[in-house]
């Protein structure tokens, strides 16, 4: 059975994939390897996991604004997430999602941070709708 969660569209486009949840903020600059899509920040909740092709849910971005360009690099290397869901968007992730053409939604009416990894999720950045399968 699927259900829909309403959020706010930040970056347009549609993306679908397996959910990957980080309860911690993410820094793309020096936190994610742009060549492989693997989280490399020491001690990070997702350390060693790949974000490529996932619907990546995390609270918000942190770190340097250059992180936006790392998101663009991930896209060019085919290692970008299929979509991003933030509790609250900020400049780095919002800008990065737009320049990298990654669909993004924030402020979901129901948080996805307590859902199981691997759940199939579709994100529509135009309407802000999130469909959980």
């Amino acid at each position, binding site marked *: 059975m699927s259900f829909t969660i309403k959020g*706010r569209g*930040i*970056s*347009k486009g549609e993306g679908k994939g397996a959910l990957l949840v980080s309860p911690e903020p993410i820094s793309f600059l020096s936190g994610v390897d*742009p060549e492989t899509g693997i989280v490399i920040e020491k001690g990070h909740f997702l350390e060693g996991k790949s974000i490529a092709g996932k619907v990546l849910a995390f609270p918000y971005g942190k770190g340097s*604004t*250059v992180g*936006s*360009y*790392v998101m*663009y*690099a991930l896209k*060019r290397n085919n290692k970008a997430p299929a979509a991003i869901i933030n509790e609250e*968007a*900020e*400049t*780095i992730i*919002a*800008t990065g999602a*737009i*320049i990298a053409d990654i669909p993004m939604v*924030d402020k979901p009416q129901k948080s996805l941070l307590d859902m199981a990894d691997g759940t199939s999720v579709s994100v529509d950045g135009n309407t802000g709708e999130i469909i959980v399968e």
Partner: protein
Amino acid sequence: MYLDKEDELILAGEYGETRQKMMEILVALGKVFGAEDLVPISSAQISGASYKTIGKWGLEWLNNLDAHVAVPSVLNPIGMPRENWEEIGISKEFADNQKEVINAYRRLGIKLECTCTPYYLNITNYGDHLAWSESSAVSYANSVLGARTNREGGPSALAAAMIGKTPNYGLHLFKNRMPGISIEVEKGEGVHANHYGAIGYLTGKLVGNKIPLFKDIRPSRDQLKALGAAMAASGAVALYHVKGITPETKLPTFSQDPSEVITIEQSEIDALFSDIDVDAVAVGCPHCSPDELAKLAMLLDGEKVKRPFYIFVAKGVKDANLQYVSKIEKSGARVIEDTCIVVSPAMDKFETVMVDSGKAYSYVPNMCGCNVRIGTTEECVRVAIS
């Protein structure tokens, strides 16, 4: 957020993919920060000019853009002067990458001035809305000129430059520009004129991102520049006020009395100054004004420097003040454009660098990996020639 018809067409892609993307960035940031509309800007200053910062992917993104800026736009300082970069020990590999970034920006219609003092080049008026990036430039524009800008990142400043507008939130709104904390400086009006960088360094550490109001000091424009730059480096101060000096404090609607008050003591200021040995001296952080160049020319007149002495400046200011530049360079000191103490690899080779700037004092240890000594401009010259 309200968009006019033209903006809606840009967002729909009627003016090409690049402008569409840029409008998407502005709309997203407007949503994030709760802006009600976009406000037209009179100029932009774009960070992310150094190859060291944006790397090959940032460069590729820039190379794929296809539109021109809509307002006068300049860049942040880069890692080297565009000409004669060999003379300060820059490698060819670094220079080649840096030139590629510069060419990418040139193609977008950006004026190739790489400076933290764009206000000496483009006339910036009271009440102008801007999209500037560099922290000391943002502080000077907001505080000293009474213009209005948030501190933009590279892509958001470029988006604003290409659309000619920025989301109307934060420091663009008068209600968000009132002071949140009062600063008393122990000696008040009697404070030594050369201590403003140190006062800013100490204040920035204490106030975080609150808007400070100084009540009892009377700095000149160049001293305001030093004060604000240091506060923006050691803290996150994008706007400050000095009662009776900076323009917004003279408005009847300005609120003068934050309840929180902190005092900067003379002993704290004195404690920053030391007489450790240095192997190079650098001034012009932020880039020198024409008056500061004139003063250095006077202080160096007939002298010879005994250790490297670098003076950083905007190219446009250097070119317009060649009479001072030639006097300065007769002493053996170097006047260098486009780059600065903090972003150039040229300073990395020294063990201890002496500066006259609270901002440089804050950044040099981490960004250049060397020790730092702060002194007045006169002391810097004295050390350089002895």
